[in-house]
C-alpha cells in the first residue's frame, strides 16, 4: 500500500500499524514539522523539541497507544501528546541546574530561548524586538503560552487549537485575550525601562 497524498491521517496510521513503512513515513512527514515547532516554541529548546517529536511518534508504534478516532482527530491527539510531553519535560527541567563552564559562565544551551542556536549570523539577523517577544512568550504561564503558540505562531483557528488542547473554543479565545494582554504589558514595561513612556511607546517597541 502506498501513501497517497489524499489519505487521511487515520488511514495512514492504520497502514502503519499494519506494517506499511511508507504510510508511517508519510504520516511522520506530514505532521512532524508542526509538532516540532510547537515543542520548540513551548520549550525554547531544540533538543527538547527533537525528543518530544520522536517520543510522540514512538508512542504511535506502541501497541497501547491511546488514540481513539471517535474522540478526535489524530492531529489533535498528536498535539495533545506533544503538549503533555513538553509539560512533563518542563517540570523535569526544573530539577536541573545549569553547570558553570570553564570560564565560569553558566551553560545556557538548552534553557535559553530560541537563541540557543549558535549561529552568530543568524543571531545578528534577529531583531531585538522579535527576541523580546519570544522571551515574553516563553515567560507566559503554560496555559497562556500554548494558545499563543497555536493561535498566533502556528496560526491555528480557535477550533483547531481547542481540539489540540482539549478545551472549549471559548476557553481558547479568553486565554488568548488574556495572554495578549500579558504580552502587551510585559513588552510595554520593557520599553518603559529603556526610555520614558508615552502613548506610543509600546507601538514603537514593536515597530
Amino acid at each position, binding site marked *: 500500500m502506498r501513501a497517497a497524498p489524499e489519505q487521511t491521517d487515520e488511514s495512514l496510521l492504520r497502514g502503519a500499524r499494519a506494517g506499511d513503512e511508507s504510510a508511517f513515513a508519510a504520516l511522520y512527514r506530514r505532521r512532524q514539522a508542526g509538532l516540532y515547532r510547537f515543542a520548540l516554541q513551548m520549550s525554547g529548546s531544540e533538543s527538547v523539541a527533537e525528543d518530544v517529536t520522536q517520543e510522540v511518534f514512538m508512542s504511535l508504534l506502541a501497541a497501547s497507544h491511546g488514540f481513539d478516532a471517535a474522540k478526535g482527530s489524530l492531529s489533535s491527539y498528536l498535539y495533545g501528546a506533544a503538549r503533555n510531553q513538553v509539560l512533563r519535560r518542563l517540570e523535569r527541567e526544573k530539577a536541573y541546574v545549569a553547570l558553570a563552564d570553564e570560564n565560569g559562565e553558566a551553560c545556557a544551551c538548552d534553557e535559553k530561548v530560541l537563541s540557543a542556536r549558535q549561529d552568530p549570523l543568524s543571531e545578528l539577523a534577529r531583531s531585538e524586538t522579535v527576541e523580546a517577544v519570544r522571551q515574553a512568550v516563553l515567560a507566559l504561564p503554560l496555559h497562556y503560552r500554548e494558545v499563543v503558540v497555536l493561535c498566533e505562531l502556528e496560526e491555528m483557528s480557535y477550533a483547531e487549537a481547542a481540539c489540540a488542547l482539549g478545551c472549549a473554543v471559548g476557553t481558547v479565545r479568553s486565554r488568548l485575550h488574556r495572554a495578549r494582554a500579558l504580552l502587551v504589558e510585559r513588552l510595554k514595561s520593557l520599553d518603559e525601562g529603556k526610555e520614558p513612556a508615552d502613548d506610543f511607546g509600546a507601538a514603537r517597541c*514593536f515597530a
Partner: protein
Amino acid sequence: MNCQDFESVAFELARAQLLDAAARESATAHAGSCELCAGRLRRERALTEALREVGAGTREACAPPRVEAALLAAFRERRAAAPAATAGAVGATRAGSWLAFTLRTRAVRRGLASAAVAASLVVALAAAWRALTPKTPGDQLQGVAQVSKEQSPSGKDDPSPQRGEQHAAAMIEVKGGQAPPVATRAARRAPRRRADAVEHLPIAFRMDGGEVVSGEGESAAATATSQAADAAGAADFVQLATGDSSAPLESGQMVRVQVPRAALAALGVPVNAERAGELVKADILLAHDGTARAIRLRP
C-alpha cells in the same frame, strides 16, 4: 460601542479575526473617536505583527533527519519482530526500540552511568543467552561449576582446569558481589522514560580484599545477613562472556533492570508466550568500564 466593549474585541480586530462585520465597523469607528482605544489598537496590531514575525522565524523549522531515521529503524524492528509475536517478540522489539530511543535522548546523554547501563543491557542480555543456553552437556556442567565454584573450591568437577580457573577467580568475586543491597533509588539519575522499560538502580561498589563494599562505604557483607531472605530467593549471578571477563572485578556498579520476558525470548530463552509481556527483574554487574560482567535473574 464603549471602551469596555472595545477592549473585548480589540485583539481580534488587530488579528483580523473579528468576523462579525457590524462589530468590526463599530469597533473601528470607536477607535477613530477614542484616543485611548486607538492606542490600544495600535499596540495590539504591533503585537500581532511581532508575533507573526516570531512565527515566521520558525516556519521552516522541522525535526532533524536523525529523528525520522530513528523512528523508521524502530518501525522496522517492530515489523520484523511481528511474525514472532506468539513468542513475545513484540515485547523484545519494544525493548530494543526503547533502548535505541533512550540512547539518543538528552536526559540520558546527561548521565554517563545511565548511558552505560542502557548500552550494557543489550550486551548483557546477549551474553545471558549464551550463558543460559546449554550448547553441550559439558558446557552446561561447566557453567554450573563456575557458579558454584565458591562452594567447591577444589574445582575437581571442572572439565577444563585452566579455563575454569579464570572463571573461578571472577565468579568468586561475583558471588561476593551478590551482597550489595539495592537499597536506594537516590542514585538514579536518568529520568524514567517508560514504565515498561528499564529501571536503573545503579549501586556503586568496590572490591576490598575480596569483600564487596558498597559505594557508601557500607560493608555489603554486613548487610548480607539482613538480605539473607532476599538472597536465598534470588538466583546466583551468571558470568557473562563479554569483554575481558577474566580480568579481576575491582569496582563497578550493580544495576537492577526490568525487561519484558519477550526480550529474553528473542535471545533464545524459553518463555511462556502467555506471559511474554510480563516484566522480569535482573541485576547486572557492570565493571568500571561499563562492561556487563554478570547477570542474576530475580524472582
